């Protein structure tokens, strides 16, 4: 496991953090009938290589909109997003699809597994189209499901399904792992197991990870906590002392 000893964090600690994703002046306005809803207002944000960032905000704060835009699912009304040297905000649908396919891993609140495929096959579905994937079974072992490879989603618990979803997201060895309320549909105990898996992936694979949540407690496991409210970034704090997911409670 020596290979996975955080070169990125080292760079961060040396004061030269490398930004994988950069957002500048992001605004998003939804036209809802006669009302304009400002979901994001002039947001600047960097995600640094290897970090685990938690985007914390109440419902309607704009955090999901932000995640959708940096994940290549949505386009801002104004502002730019840059992934390494690619300007995502200038990309068309084909280029965005390619970006998601090659560089982003998604974990959804409701897992979104394919019910007609087993755990292993759900992961294989993604590794088949990935450039440099890991072994699907390895990915499932990483999330602690090495003994449930051939179960269908309907035969797995909610927490297990979410871990399959994480395995699916990380198996392609993405540059960025985006998790939207990953514990939102899970109970306390299961939620903590899922967070442990995310933390482990971040630590062992050095995958830049952004976790969206409204759960204040989760922010303690982050390298940085980005608070969002009313479409603006309210504060960004680095955690001096990161808690392990096991230590969290809510």
């Amino acid at each position, binding site marked *: 496991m020596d290979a996975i000893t955080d070169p990125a964090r080292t760079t961060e600690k040396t004061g030269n953090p490398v930004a994988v994703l950069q957002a500048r002046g992001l605004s998003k306005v939804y036209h809802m009938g006669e009302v304009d809803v400002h979901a994001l207002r002039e947001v600047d944000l960097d995600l640094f290589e290897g970090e685990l960032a938690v985007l914390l905000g109440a419902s309607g704060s704009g955090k999901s909109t932000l995640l959708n835009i940096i994940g290549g*699912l*949505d386009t801002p009304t104004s502002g730019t997003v840059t992934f390494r040297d690619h300007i995502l905000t200038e990309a068309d649908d084909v280029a965005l699809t390619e970006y998601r396919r090659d560089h982003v891993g998604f974990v*959804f609140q409701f897992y979104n597994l394919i019910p*007609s*495929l087993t755990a292993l096959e759900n992961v294989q*579905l993604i590794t088949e189209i990935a450039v440099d994937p890991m072994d699907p079974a390895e990915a499932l072992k990483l999330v602690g499901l090495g003994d449930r490879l051939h179960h*269908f989603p*309907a035969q797995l618990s909610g927490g297990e399904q979410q871990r399959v979803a994480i395995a699916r997201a990380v198996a392609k060895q993405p540059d960025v792992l985006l998790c939207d309320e990953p514990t939102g549909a899970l109970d306390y105990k299961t939620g903590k197991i899922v967070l442990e898996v995310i933390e482990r992936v971040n630590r062992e694979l050095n995958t830049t990870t952004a976790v969206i949540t409204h759960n204040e407690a989760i922010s303690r496991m982050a390298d940085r906590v980005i608070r969002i409210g009313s479409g603006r970034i309210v504060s960004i704090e680095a955690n001096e002392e990161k808690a392990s997911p096991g230590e969290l409670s809510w």
Partner: protein
Amino acid sequence: MVKQRLKLLSPLNKKLVRDINHLRGQVFATALVVACGVASFVAMQATYDSLLLSRDTYYSLYRFADVFSSVKRAPDSIREDIRKIPGVSEVQTRVVSNVTIDLPDLPEPAQGRLVSVDRSSGSILNGLYVQRGRELTEGARDEVLISGAFAEANGLNPGDSLNVVINGRWRRLTIAGIALSPEYIYEIRPGSIFPDNRRFGILWMSRRSAAAAFDMENAFNDVSLTLAPGANEADVIEKLDDVLETYGGTGAIGRTDQYSHRFVSNELSELEVFGTFIPAIFLGVVAFLLHLILSRLVGIEREQIGLLKAFGYSNRTIGLHYLKLAVLAIVGGVIIGIALGAWLGSGMTALYADFFRFPILEFTVPFSVIVWAFAISFAAAAVGAVSSVRRAVTTRPAEAMRPEPPADFQAGFLERSGLNKMFSAEVRMIARNLARHPLKALLSIVGISLSVALLFIGFYFYDAINRLIEIQFNRVQLEDVEVTFNEPMPSETRYELLNLPGVNRVETYRAVPVKLRFGSHSRRAGLVGMEQGGRLRNIVDKNLRDVRIPNEGIVLSTTLAESLGAAEGDEVTVEVTEGSRPVAKVSVADTVEEAIGLGVYMDSDALHRLLKESDVVSGAYLEVDDKYAEELYETLKNTPAVAGVGRPQAALDSFNETVGQTIGTSTAFLIGFACVIAFGVVYNGARIALSERGRELASLRVLGFTRREIGVILLGEQAILTGWAAPVGWAIGFVLCFAITRAIDAEIIRLPLVISTATFVYSFLIVAFAALLSGLLVAWRLRNLDLIEVLKTRE
């Protein structure tokens, strides 16, 4: 407007209207199938009703006879004997004979059937309807009425004159009018199956003139009669045959064997069969489509159903709600179908009017047909809705308001056999989705396969007709010209024929009408004595095998052998019904499955021995040098002994002109119908798949799958179903073709059951193309998949 109207509706009915609006794509696709089903039903049933009504009215107003017989020559005095036969109501005696007609712009002579008209005798059976011109003037010697189709094909009008060879003498006749008779609704040369109106027509002449021309004063050679109510046709025929026997009666027939009547009836029964099974196919598909749509809808609206019940709506109200939806979804299709059917039916009737000549053939859509159209469509809708309605009714509110558990998939055959490793995850998704609802998959396959089957049948007709043409014109009738004589001619006639301009080869034949008996069965037929070693006319079975005429014994067509119950080696009784009427027992040397007619063949020398006659001939087949053809026809026109001249090429041309076009039109409709079914099934199947798996597909898009890749996953299922529909459709089509060949009157025509590769290929390709188009239409909607929504919501 719509808003105002909606206010008048109860909330549940508003939901109904909006649900239908929401489902409009699928409702439209289903309504199209309904419209086709109803249109085919209305068109064929109404045409059937119109034809039947026209025929029966025609028969009764113009007093179509019940029994017909021809006779060599009988004195008028026995007319009374015939009338006295118990069960006979009215008797008509006539002079009927074949004549040769010289038409200016037709190289070869045309054949006419001259029928006498006796207006003085009081009772007129087989009455004439004068379409144009006037009736025959009493006493006018050289006037005729001519039949409608013949007049039309040759552009003949009242007042025109016509050169005709009557009993060996040239006569110039004036056309007084154009007439129709119930006896010749289908105006066709006896022995043919397709009309050739340029070369065959009916001529009606006054009895006195006809009698004078044929030396039939105070005599007749044709009798027809009507039966008294309750009379037994078979008894009357038997007694009539007894009366006529000494005068050379050739044996009486009932209406069912009357040539024109037989064709019209056969067509009517075909129409009835097609008018039942084609709408049934469509409405079966409709039931299936509504089943798909409603099951999905009730699935989506599970929570709403629970809510409604929780608030006190009764099971009945909710069940009725979905039933109403099914009925409302198709009602537009029914109305369009009725209109379309009326249009199609009037077109079909107009097409029939070209073949069948009625004084009045008016197409009407009876009210009862409209009522039936609604009734069967609603019944199909109800069948389609029943399981969904039941599910809506039996849903328990508390259970329904909880979200449905995730789709349950389990390891199946593919996994246990280890075969799954061979396939990609996409293929496994498709396979498992199909395997999860095997009945639905099966019904989809059957639905699509029905459109393959419809096309298969349509193209089969081409194959069958092509084979018939190949058999008839490339293998059987190899002569350029067939000449028939009025009377048997001495065998030296062959040399006279050989000396005619352009004639290279002559083969003669002898033909006599016979009655064959075997056991308790008897059949009438024409026995043909063929020359040994002839090559202009062949006997060929359905596999194009040449059948050699044995020196002794007869060769029977299979249909005739079957109706007699006789087989190879059996001895049948042959009663010749003309001349000295010899009777002999002859063994069946061979049977041959012929495509057309009821042939009986034997060696010409053997036939002469049977007839105890010298070497005489009834006609000849000629091989003719094209260069001299016109000259030859001119000579034949002027040869009194020649009763008819047949030209296979002319018959083929005429066939292609008339029947070929009709088949082309009906094939075009079948293609349209098949595309509608394929479109309906595939479009609905894909739309439901999209609705069921939209979330899954959106997730895949989020994970980086391209639109094309998820399109393949969405449509792969429909593609597999369509692929499976090919063999199933071919099998269904083949069985239906077989049934059709059986349903067609075998004594008229036996369609060979041959299917070309093209039929297999095109019946599938057209359906696959329609399926692809409907699939792409659905795939287009993938553009609108909401990728963000899928992250937020749970289904």
